């Protein structure tokens, strides 16, 4: 019987060295553990377990990637204290790859630094570890208690997931990144638990046309569809991306032609158009036409979902020769310093700032109630990951989610706006 990507990866990682199938509960060896802003809490779990001082060791000092990202510089005394503990832990445990005093979103940094390799199983205490699937890796979020176990022994229990195949057909629009519209379309049509406990495999001609940024957006958002993993197959773009960053060996994993999926879906890009998620759930999705004209107070571009060069580039293109609408806060936060540098080198930062954008440090604050809070009754349109009630402060604030082009066009007009007209004008 043919096997899916998830079945193949987990068969390789299975401690019992056997072929595993969807539904099996197995012990697995992980290839990497990402420890981020919550590192000190992972250590506290080990203390709570009854281990004096916390984690007694790391199973592999070169496979635990530690960083004090998320909220840098610290935005509270508590965070400063936790970062200090993380610093001390990194020294005590002999962590080889430790990034301190570097703002960013952990998942983007993991990719930027070449820590994510095709075919690997990488976990971490953050739900958006699914992003690693863009690089053909099995990435998934865990919580601090099993992160503590994984840190010491490099092992975890996992249920081998069923798989859902999503084939993306049609031509990419070319003038704007469409990945966000695709995932919102899926959530709207099939629900935000459409892939609960499952592995998604994104495939099809348009998936292959997508560059790594768009693939990262879709894989990242796997968790918003409930997924455990969200894979792309490795191709020449994947290999080029990885090879620019590391010489470490890896083996890509593709599905067998007769792999068994619990569901197979096709997305036609022509049908996707421009989509917006209304408050307060990810699957409350409508075509842009149904919300166009809604007044906004804030427009955000950033996060592990849509804070990469292509997202900020399209915003700069839309804002060129235009200004942010009066009364609108247009906030741009690159997903990492590597992305920030790309934006600087391309002149996007200057161009956006001259148009009235505010730049924020790379990090997760843009996506949560850490930065850019919202008051009662305020409305935001955002390319970030989530629109849950209270996500940006007041439970009476409203968060709409959309792709970066829609966010930028809305920043210009002050109301939710279909970006296609401005994009056409910009290309002429």
């Amino acid at each position, binding site marked *: 019987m043919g096997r899916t990507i998830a079945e193949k990866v987990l068969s390789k990682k299975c401690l019992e060295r056997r072929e595993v199938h969807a539904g099996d509960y197995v012990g697995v060896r992980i290839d990497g553990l990402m420890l981020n802003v919550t590192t000190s809490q992972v250590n506290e779990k080990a203390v709570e377990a009854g281990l004096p001082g916390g984690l007694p060791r790391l199973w592999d000092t070169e496979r635990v990637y530690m960083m004090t990202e998320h909220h840098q510089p610290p935005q509270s005394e508590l965070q400063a204290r936790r970062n200090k503990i993380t610093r001390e832990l990194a020294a005590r445990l002999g962590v080889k790859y430790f990034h301190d005093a570097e703002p960013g979103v952990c998942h983007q940094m993991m990719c930027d630094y070449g820590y994510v390799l095709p075919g690997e199983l990488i976990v971490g205490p953050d739900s958006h570890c699914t992003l690693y699937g863009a690089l053909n890796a099995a990435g998934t979020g865990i919580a601090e208690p099993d992160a503590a176990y994984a840190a010491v022994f490099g092992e975890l229990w996992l249920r081998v997931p069923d798989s859902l195949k999503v084939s993306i057909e049609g031509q990419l629009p070319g003038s704007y990144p469409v990945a966000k519209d695709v995932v919102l379309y899926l959530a709207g049509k099939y629900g*935000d638990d459409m892939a609960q406990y499952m592995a998604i495999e994104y495939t099809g001609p348009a998936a292959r046309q997508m560059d790594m940024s768009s693939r990262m957006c879709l894989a990242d958002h796997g968790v918003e569809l409930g997924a455990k993993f969200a894979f792309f197959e490795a191709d020449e773009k994947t290999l080029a991306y990885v090879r620019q960053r590391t010489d470490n060996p890896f083996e890509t994993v593709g599905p067998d032609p007769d792999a068994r999926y619990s569901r197979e879906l096709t997305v036609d890009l022509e049908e996707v158009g421009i989509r917006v998620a209304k408050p307060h759930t990810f699957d409350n999705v409508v075509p842009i036409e149904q919300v166009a004209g809604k007044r906004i107070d804030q427009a955000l571009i950033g996060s592990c979902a849509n804070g990469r060069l292509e997202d900020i580039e399209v915003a700069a293109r839309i804002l060129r020769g235009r200004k942010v609408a009066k009364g609108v806060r247009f906030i741009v936060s690159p997903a990492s310093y590597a992305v920030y540098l790309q934006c600087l080198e391309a002149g996007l930062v200057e161009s956006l700032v001259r148009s009235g954008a505010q730049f924020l440090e790379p990090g997760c604050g843009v996506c949560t109630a850490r930065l850019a809070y919202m008051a009662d009754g305020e409305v935001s349109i955002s390319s970030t990951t989530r629109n849950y009630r209270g996500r940006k402060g007041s439970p009476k604030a409203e968060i709409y989610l959309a792709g970066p082009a829609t966010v930028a066009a809305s920043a210009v007009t002050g109301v939710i706006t279909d970006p296609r007209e401005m994009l056409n004008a910009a290309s002429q």
Partner: protein
Amino acid sequence: MLRLNEFVLRGRVWKFGDSVDTNIIAPLHVMRKGEIAELAQHTMAALRPDFPEQVRPGDIVVAGANFGCGSHREEANLVLEKVGIRAILAESVARIFLRTSINLAYPTLVAPGVSSLVEDHEELEIDYPKGKMRNLQTGRELSLPKYPPSVEQIFAAGGILTLLKERCVREGLVQL
């Protein structure tokens, strides 16, 4: 420690809808001080302002699909335990929330049909060994799926932290 093979519970139900996310359960803006006790005063309040005040030890949360979706947040599991919720039953539970419950040995059960079995503040009986749940007001029953044995063992051990400590001792990584 939680022996699921002895897990029988009666309790009053707090009923919620679909997609209750972890920020509803553990709002980030009150996590600042890192205190679960403070979170307990705000948990679920965005949906049910009366919940933090009125919840009683022994109550049960019943929810629709995708309970606990959103950010990974162990505090979400911890705060419900802290306010005395003895069990969570939902049509489906978001992956990380469910995984964390298992690793904390906190009874969180995927129970398809539970939303139509009970209404808010009715009494529910959960009989895990018999694989049944029963509405004590209406007498209606539904079957309750079981975890696989490997997961029941994590519950029986008292969660993954106990397993971590035992293995550290066994492998000589710590002397206690």
